[in-house]
């Protein structure tokens, strides 16, 4: 009798939490297609709110393109820097190695907002303000500590023998990197790529500060503007449609790459 009671109360508690955590997610999907006053979906269920987003300002297509461009570029920058840097830290000794590694990790200690003020001014001097490429460079900066750390431990985990036999066959260090090591560290590459994509896709404060032209806005800023700009009447339906559009790629990536999510957290736990 007692184990049964224990088991029932376990499922009541666990299930209750599951309902609480899932409810807002289910609700936003529902609200984006449900009829409601003061939205683009007045009668019956339908995609009126999404259609509204397509025409809003520069158009959903534009914002999707901007967000995708920034995210893909951030992933490319991050992977390029972290692969070369991680390889250097894992397999070579050179002057200033430890200093450079510690300084790279120290980026984590400095608040985002502290660097955005001078970066705003610097990007202006470099002609990169209001530039999606400039934004991607800044987003890369904040991915660097995790990415370099992750790639360093990935390279360190590859047995040295594999490399040495290739060296004996006359391959240079770059040949070893591109022809052998990259295949050995691909789980690390996926984790770094996943995390930097999600961070860039979802970032809000950097594009808010660094990109002010309306047709260069990324999705989170565009949807937040949608909420702010109309006086008095906020288009809540379109806002929730925007939330769904932003969330879908994140949910799909989660479904496809679950194992790499946990891998990233585990290395975080080791770091702490």
């Amino acid at each position, binding site marked *: 009798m007692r184990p049964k009671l224990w088991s029932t109360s376990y499922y009541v508690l666990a299930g209750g939490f599951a309902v609480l955590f899932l409810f807002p997610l289910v609700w936003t999907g529902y609200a984006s297609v449900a009829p409601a006053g003061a939205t683009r979906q007045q009668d019956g269920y339908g995609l009126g709110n999404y259609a509204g987003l397509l025409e809003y300002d520069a158009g959903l297509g534009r914002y999707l393109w901007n967000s995708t461009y920034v995210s893909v570029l951030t992933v490319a920058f991050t992977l390029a820097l972290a692969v070369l*840097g991680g390889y250097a830290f894992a397999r070579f000794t050179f002057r200033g190695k430890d200093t450079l590694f510690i300084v790279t990790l120290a980026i984590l200690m400095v608040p985002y907002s502290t660097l955005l*003020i001078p970066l705003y001014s610097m990007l202006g001097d470099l002609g990169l303000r209001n530039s999606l490429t400039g934004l991607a460079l800044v987003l890369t900066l904040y991915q660097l500590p995790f990415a370099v750390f992750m790639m360093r431990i990935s390279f360190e985990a590859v047995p040295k023998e594999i490399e040495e036999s290739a060296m004996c066959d006359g391959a240079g260090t770059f040949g070893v990197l591109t022809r052998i090591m990259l295949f050995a560290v691909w789980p690390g590459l996926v984790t770094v790529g996943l995390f930097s994509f999600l961070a860039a896709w979802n970032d809000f404060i950097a594009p808010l500060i660094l990109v002010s032209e309306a047709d260069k806005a990324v999705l989170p800023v565009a949807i937040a503007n949608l909420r702010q700009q109309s006086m008095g009447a906020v288009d809540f339906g379109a806002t929730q449609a925007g939330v769904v559009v932003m969330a879908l790629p994140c949910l799909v990536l989660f479904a496809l790459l679950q194992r790499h999510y946990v891998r990233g957290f585990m290395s975080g736990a080791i770091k702490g």
Partner: protein
Amino acid sequence: MRHSRKLAGALYAAPVAVFVLVFFIAPLLLVGRMSASDWPLLAGDLGLNMPDNYTGIADNPLFWPAVGFTLKYTGIVVVLLIGLSLLLALIVADRRKGTGFFRTAYFLPTTLGLASASLLFFGFYSPAIGPLDPLLEALGLGPVSWLGTPTAALWSTVVLIVWKFAGFFMIILLVGLQSIPPDVYEAARLDGANRWQSFRHVTVPLLRPALGLVLILSVTGSLLAFDQFFILTKGGPDNSTVTVVQLIYREAFQRFDLGAAAAISVVVLAALVVVNIGQLRALRKDT
């Protein structure tokens, strides 16, 4: 051979070095210089004015309320987040029927961005389309203004943050829980420890590194809160939910004073370094 290997290593590290120099070290130096200068947003550098930007911080009527609010918010969020994420981790720690589903359910909000989650709750709390007032009405309770008073706005934001991050911290604690060897529990049980005693004297001490990581991440994240308040409450009502980072944003882009914003940024940086060193020390001493 050895010499060329050194050169090769330096070459592979060079892109990171250049990048860190340009996008990290240079802005770090520049923020110090800006904080000591008269630096309007549009006009740019008008020369040193030390210590005006720093003395101006104390005169800013929003500064101390923002500091007080940020600390209060951090305290609430950290306690609730650690408590709930530990509870969730314990719920899903043992493999039994359904734990896979529960893990995924608790974790799903983490996959959203913070701005998306804030926009979601912006609608969720709204009287226009939010589901809460109809639910309360069905129970015979009146509508609640979820963001209308300072207290309501604070707690509504806390709920959003706990919802968004509990699953993330649950996973960190879960990894910690699973790294505790089962024989330690077995030994405690043989010594006659009950469920609570083995939790108190085995789980909590051995979970310390994971708890430490959760503590540092949640403290830092809350002290630097921006997106959730910018989107959900806009700092209102009556500036009651303005955080320190929001104040930096306002100084820079609403009052167009980059010098003042830089000075607050430097203070925040210093405070955060002190807090993090303090936490690391405390955690190390105890273990």
